[in-house]
C-alpha cells in the first residue's frame, strides 16, 4: 500500500467557524422569545387575543391596545361566547363570570363582568391573562375594556365586579359558532414565591 505523511491543515479556522455556528444557535433561542410573540399575534397561535397592554416591557395578551372602531354588525349569524376563569395556585382568590354564555352578532359590542373575591385577610395583587379557544378566533376577539389590561388589587375579604367590553370582529370565520374566553388569574408575586407561600398556607 502506498503511504504518505499527513498534510498540515488549518484547523483553527474551521473551529472558529463552528464556534460561530454555536453562538448563532444560542442567540437564536433568545431571538425566539420576541419572534414567538409576533408569530402568535399574527396567527392567533396559542389563543392570544387582539387588544392588550404593554406592562413592564412585556406584552400581556397582545401587543396593541384595542381602539373600538365601529365595524358593521353582521346580522346574518350569531356566535355563542362562553366565559370561564381559573385562579392559579398561590392566589387566595375566587372568581366566576356573572354571565356564563352569550349569543351575539359579530361586530356588536357587548359588556359582561366577573365577580372576583379576595378570600384572605391581607391585601393581594393579581394579574389576569386571557386566552381564546379556538385559536383561529383569537385574532378577531377584540377587547375594548378589560380588567386584564392592568393589575388588580383587592383588600382583605374585598369582592369586586370586574367589567369586560368586547367585540367579535365580523371577519371571524363563518365556521366558528362557539368561542370560549378563559382567564387565568395569577398572583403578581411570581410563580415560585407564590407556590412557596401556597405551601405555607396549606
Amino acid at each position, binding site marked *: *500500500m*502506498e*503511504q*504518505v*505523511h*499527513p*498534510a498540515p*491543515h*488549518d*484547523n483553527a479556522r*474551521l*473551529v472558529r467557524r*463552528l*464556534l460561530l*455556528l*454555536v*453562538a448563532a*444557535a*444560542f442567540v*437564536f*433561542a*433568545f431571538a*425566539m*422569545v420576541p419572534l*414567538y*410573540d409576533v408569530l*402568535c399575534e399574527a*396567527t*392567533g*397561535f*396559542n*389563543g392570544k387575543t387582539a387588544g392588550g397592554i404593554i*406592562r*413592564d416591557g*412585556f*406584552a*400581556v395578551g397582545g401587543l396593541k391596545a384595542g381602539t373600538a372602531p365601529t365595524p358593521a354588525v353582521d346580522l346574518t349569524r350569531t356566535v355563542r361566547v362562553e366565559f370561564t376563569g381559573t385562579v*392559579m395556585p398561590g392566589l387566595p382568590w375566587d372568581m366566576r363570570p356573572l354571565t356564563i354564555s352569550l349569543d351575539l352578532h359579530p361586530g356588536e359590542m357587548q359588556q359582561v363582568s366577573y365577580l372576583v373575591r379576595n378570600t384572605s385577610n391581607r391585601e393581594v395583587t393579581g*394579574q389576569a*391573562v386571557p386566552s381564546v*379557544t379556538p*385559536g*383561529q378566533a383569537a385574532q378577531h376577539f377584540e377587547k375594548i375594556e378589560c380588567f386584564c389590561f392592568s393589575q388588580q388589587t383587592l383588600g382583605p375579604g374585598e369582592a369586586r365586579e370586574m367589567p369586560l367590553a368586547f367585540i367579535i370582529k365580523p371577519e371571524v370565520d363563518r365556521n366558528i359558532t362557539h368561542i370560549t374566553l378563559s382567564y*387565568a388569574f*395569577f*398572583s*403578581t408575586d*411570581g*410563580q*415560585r414565591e407564590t*407556590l412557596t407561600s401556597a405551601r405555607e398556607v396549606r
Partner: protein
Amino acid sequence: MSSVTTTHPVEQHAEYHPGGLLRWLTTTNHKDIGTMYMTFALIMFFVGGIMILAVRAELFQPGLQLMKPEFFNQLIGVHALVMIFAALMPAATGFANWMIPLMIGAPDMALPRLNNWGFWLLPPAAFLLTLPFSLALLGFGDGAIATGWTFYAPLSVQGGWGVDFAILAVHILGISSIMGSINIIVTIFNMRAPGMTMMKLPLFAWGWLITAFLLIATLPVLAGAVTMLLTDRHFGTHFFDAAGGGDPILFQHLFWFFGHPEVYILLLPVWGLMPHVLSTFSRKPVYGYKAQVYSFIAIGILSVVVWAHHFFTAGMPIPALIYFMFSTMAISLPLAVLFFCWIATMWKGAMSFETPMLFAVGFIVLFGIAGLTGLILADVAADAQYHHSYFVVAHFHYALFAGGIMGVMTGVYYWLPKWTGHMYNETLGKLHFWLTVISFNLTFIPQFFLGLAGMPRRIPDYALQFAEFNAISTIGAFILGLSQLLFAWNVWACVRGGKKAESRSWEGAEGLEWELPSPPPHHTWEIQPQIK
C-alpha cells in the same frame, strides 16, 4: 487496499507516558479516550437501568407499594436524562473516537486536548445530575428533578433544587457534546487520508458528520431554554410565566426544537455503522452508498422543521397542525430509503449470523416497528388519543432501545475484536442477543396495548384493568435488565483474554480499520494510506 498490513510502522515517540490513573486523566490518544467514553457509557447504562427497574417494580401492581409519587417522578426523569445524555450519546462519541481516525486513515483526532476535556466533563455532570438523590437521603432538599426529562414549564419553574442541578448538568453535558462535535467535524474535514474524497468516506463517518452538525445547531438552543428557566427561577424574569407576559408553551417549542433533532442525533451514528456490519456478514459491498448519504443529509435537514409533533395537543391553528403532521411523515421517506438499502445489502448475500449480524437484523426489524408506530403518532387525529400514553413510551423505546442501544451493541460486538485483539465468547453473545430480543418485546409490546387502552405515562398508579399487562411488562423488564449483565461480562472477559483476533477479524470485513493489527498499536496511520 488488498494487502493486509500486519506489521504497521510505529514511530518512536519521546512522549511522556504516565502510568495508572494519571494516564487516563491526561491522555489525548483517541483510542484511550474512546475506551473511556465506552466504559462511562456502560456504567451509566446500568445506573439508568437500575432506576427504571425500581419504577417497573412500583408498576408491577396497581396501588402505591414501594415509593412516594414524588420519588417515582424523579426516577423516570433522571432515568431518561442518564440514558440519553450519559449512556447513548457517550457511547456514540466513544465509537467516533475509536473508529473515525482508524477508518479515514488519520493518526488521531484533530484536536486531541479538547478531546480529553470533552470526556472529563462527563463524570462531574453525571455526578451533579444524581447528587440530589443522595442529598435528599441525608436530609437536604427534596430530591432530583421531578419534571420528566422534558423540563416543561411551569412545573420546572416551581420545582425544587433538583431542577437547578439538572440544568447545570445539562449545560456541562451540552458543552462536552459540542466540543466532541467540533472535533469530529474538523477531523473528518481536515484529516482524511489523501485520495479519500467525501464520497469515499465510510458511512459511519458520514452518519457522525450529520450528527455533529445537528448537535452544534440544536444543543445551544436547549442551553438557551434551560438558561431562561434558570433566570425565571432565580432572577425574576418571566420567559415562561404567563402572569408576567411570558408563555409556558414557548418552552415546549424551544425544548423540542432541540428534542426532535436529538432523536436523530442518537440514531445517525447507528445508521452509519449498520451498513458496515450488514455488508461484512453478507459478504457483499454496501448497497446504495450514495442513496444512504443523501438520506442522512435529508433526515438531518428535515429533523429541525418538525418539532411541534411532540405537542399537537397543546393547541395550534389547524394549518400548523397540518404542516407539522405532513413534514413529520415526510421524514419516513428517506428513512424508508435506508431500510431498503439495508435489506438490499443482505439480499443475495452469503449471510452468516455471528452476534453482530444477529443484532443488526434484530435492529432492522424492531426499529421498523418504531418507525411505523411513529407514523401513527404523527397523525394529528390519532395523536389526540395516544399523546402522553404508554403508546408513546413503547414507540420511543423501540426507537431508542431497539434502535439506539441494540445498534450500539451491534457495533460493540463488531469492533470488539479490533479493540481488544481477542474474540469474544460467541455462544454467550448469541444468548445475550436472544434474551435481549425476547425480553425487550415482552417488556414493550404490552405497553402498546396499555397505551391504546388509555393508560397515561408518568403516573405511579393505574386502574385495575391495566394490571395484567403491567405485570408482564415488569417481568420482561427485569429479564431484560439482568440479560445485560451477560453483555458486560462478555465484554470484560474479551478485554481480559480469549482467542486471538486477526487483523481482519471478520472474513468479509472491508475498510481501513481492518488493515491494522488487532489490537492496533497506540499510534496508527502516522503515515497515511493513499486511497485510490
